[in-house]
């Protein structure tokens, strides 16, 4: 077991790679009641075209299958795992993103039992035709719920505008039609390929003893047999750097209009420190351009183009990435124009200053301290970072290294007319 100390933060992180390839991290948090654990596979909605375990040819699976699998993993021959957790005083949950499926629990007692329940249920699939059929009704309602949600439609509408081919443009849950094709055999195919320990990460954060917890996990894993796994082959079509559509307007049953401007990211084949630096630099840049202390925010608010729902965000993963800026607005077209003007002007250095950079860096350092109060944040973000070979606890030192030159260079590179797109929701 390896121990990594973060003196400034007064935290220590413990790490071990199990013999079967599973990465285990433990972060003891004294004084907390809660232990939070996530067991995550590097398998999300975008992984729909791959070579299944022990096969040689690529296979394409229905949209929404990773999310469907997440739902079904909770059901066992003798009932529901939710029940098992709640008998042990824990609450459990799971989520599927573009790139990950995470199973988690939190509890303030019986942590060891809950931890074993988590590991065992994820490593013991049980799918039948009957339970697969039953789940189609439940997930159908989940999909319909999102169909009525204007923010979700706007978010996906914007991503769909950006991508020509990449499966990030497909809704994570699929459609009522696509999930109709899912069978238990397909679930096993995906499970066997992506739920191998070497493709997974376990994170424990809470008032635990690292030695004891690690040995508990080690013993559990040593009892199980897994086939040797070679690297998983995934297939993605070549994706142009320009956006697929410049604009999309969705008419919905709403009273307020919404508008998002998106930028399709450029450097999507990065990983590790390079990716961390790039992601933070671009995040700081957007904060300088659109943060609440910026002149742009003040002007847009004053002109009545934005309200408190205004936000901006930049995400980057392996193979895709995007920035989003916008929110509710009474004047969606004007807002779209103004945001694009601000961006294109920033390409030439406008709205960017050394002073704003220093302020933004300070702000991000404080935000990081606030975030690591949260066990959920630590576990989820750490895993995301690790899957991209980045180190969560390198955030502050990396932030400190960002220079004004970095910001100007990234603004000039990233912001490009043909990578900009707009999505709006307006009342019917």
């Amino acid at each position, binding site marked *: 077991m390896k121990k990594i100390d973060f003196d400034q933060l007064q935290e220590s992180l413990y790490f071990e790679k199990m013999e079967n390839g599973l990465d285990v991290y433990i972060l003891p948090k004294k004084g907390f009641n809660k232990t939070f654990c996530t067991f995550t596979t590097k398998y999300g909605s975008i992984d729909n075209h791959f070579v299944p375990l022990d096969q040689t040819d690529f296979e394409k699976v229905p949209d929404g299958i990773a999310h469907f699998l997440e739902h079904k993993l909770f059901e066992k021959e003798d009932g529901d795992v939710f029940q098992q957790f709640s008998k042990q005083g824990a*609450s459990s949950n799971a989520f599927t993103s573009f790139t990950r499926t995470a199973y988690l629990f939190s509890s*303030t007692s019986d942590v060891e039992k809950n931890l074993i329940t988590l590991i065992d249920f994820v490593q013991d699939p049980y799918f039948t035709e009957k339970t697969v059929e039953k789940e189609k009704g439940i997930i159908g309602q989940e999909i319909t719920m999102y169909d009525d949600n204007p923010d979700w439609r706007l978010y996906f509408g914007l991503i769909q505008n950006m991508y020509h081919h990449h499966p990030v443009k497909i809704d994570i849950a699929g459609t009522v039609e696509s999930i109709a094709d899912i069978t238990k055999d397909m679930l096993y195919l995906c499970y066997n390929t992506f739920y191998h320990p070497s493709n997974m990460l376990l994170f424990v954060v809470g008032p635990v003893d690292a030695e004891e917890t690690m040995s508990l996990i080690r013993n559990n894993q040593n009892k199980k047999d897994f086939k040797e796994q070679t690297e998983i082959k995934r297939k993605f079509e070549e994706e142009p750097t320009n956006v697929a559509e410049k604009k999309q307007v969705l008419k919905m049953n709403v009273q307020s209009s919404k508008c998002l401007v998106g930028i399709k990211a450029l450097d999507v084949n990065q990983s590790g420190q390079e990716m961390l630096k790039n992601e933070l630099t671009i995040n700081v840049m957007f904060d300088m351009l659109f943060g609440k202390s910026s002149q742009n925010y003040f002007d847009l608010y004053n002109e009545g183009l934005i309200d408190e729902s205004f936000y901006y965000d930049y995400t980057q993963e392996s193979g895709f990435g995007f920035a989003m800026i916008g929110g509710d607005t009474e004047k969606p077209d004007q807002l779209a124009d103004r945001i694009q003007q601000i961006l294109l002007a920033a390409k030439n250095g406008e709205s960017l200053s050394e002073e704003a950079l220093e302020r933004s860096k300070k702000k991000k350092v404080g935000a990081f301290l606030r975030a690591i109060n949260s066990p959920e944040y630590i576990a989820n973000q750490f895993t995301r970072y690790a899957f991209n070979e980045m180190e969560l606890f390198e955030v502050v030192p990396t932030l400190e290294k960002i220079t004004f030159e970095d910001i100007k260079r990234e603004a000039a590179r990233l912001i490009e007319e043909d990578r900009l797109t707009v999505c709006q929701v307006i009342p019917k």
Partner: protein
Amino acid sequence: MAKVNESIKDKNGYHLHVIKTEKYKTNTFVWKMKAPLTEEDVTLRALLPQVMQSSTKDYSTTTELRSYLDELYGASFYVDLAKKGEYHIISFTLEIANEKFLKDQTPLLRKGMEFLASVISNPNVEDNTFHHETVEKEKRTLRQRIQSVYDDKMRYSNARLVEEMCEGEPFSLHANGTKEKVDEITADSLYQYYQRSIAEDELDFYIIGDVEEPEVETLCNELFSFNPRTPQTVEVSRGKSDSEPKEIKENQDVKQGKLNIGYRTNITFGEEDYFPLTVFNGIFGGFSHSKLFINVREKASLAYYAASIVESHKGLLMVMSGIDNNNYDQAVKIIHEQMDAMKKGDFTEQEIEQTKAVIRNQLLETIDTARGMVEVLYHNVVSKQNITIEEWLQSVKETTKDQIVAAADKIKLDTIYFLTGTEGNQS
């Protein structure tokens, strides 16, 4: 393990609550202002904190104010509104890094408190009125916020249930007020309301973090001072007990129907039946092992979510679920059956134990966050109780099946609300 050291002191016009803990890398300050929920004041109270947080005498524009917060290592600062029973509560929250985790030793504790004092006591006022343009801007934002509820169908149907169910009672008012009232507000009238609110509201100040009580108390004495007051109290109205349940259907262009059912529990926080009621709710619909989840979702596959919540101070139990428009009758029937089963005591010791364990877990998790801790402790202020978290946990633990059934016996169906997408094909 669950021990929370809450020290409460009577200060000039407010109560200071200090909770010392080494859990966090930050210190959190929550300033609460409580007054009765009334039709006359609700919109003023919704607008007031928005205007106060956008600028002060010391930081006279939003840009200046927000730049200053960024300088304080990105201190997070926001306001929110809540209804607790028939009270309307304004909260100002400031969370700021504890300087011991920083390389440079800026006195962030003091600066954070000075900033908050500036927001509360030194607003952007000239010639006895708020800055006119700021008020107009924030009016526009508030109108937008009121309107946005309509677009989130889950929130909308929940708000509509409360409106229908509590018609004529203050609780039917929305915490953000109404658009019509927003229009009537002027910089003058809002400033007059500010003065009244500062003079009359019940004020509570919570400080959570690795702080020394004498130090923060000295800072408070220096920075916060108000006139003494006797805050107004309200008798919570419990609705007519003999009326027939209402059934309301509303048509809108939605794909998924929203089914919301409201019950009167006739039990509020601090009463003997309250903790049994929370166990009741846990077995009925509070968790993923609950009857609603299992029967509406897992067995009948009718919904993605089917859950219930308790409004602690008004004494309401509310069920919410998203279902196919055609499944209304079946879903209502299943929910009624679960309620009947609860009333008849048709649940096992194991379900009780399971639920108690999860409630305990939930409460302990809530107090792991500074905000959650304040919300838990503030129940005492609203209900004029003095229940410690240990007592709370103990009461849940000791709850018996008979007590749960006794609580169930007090629960009366009040209103069924259904937001549906298609006309004519239900019931």
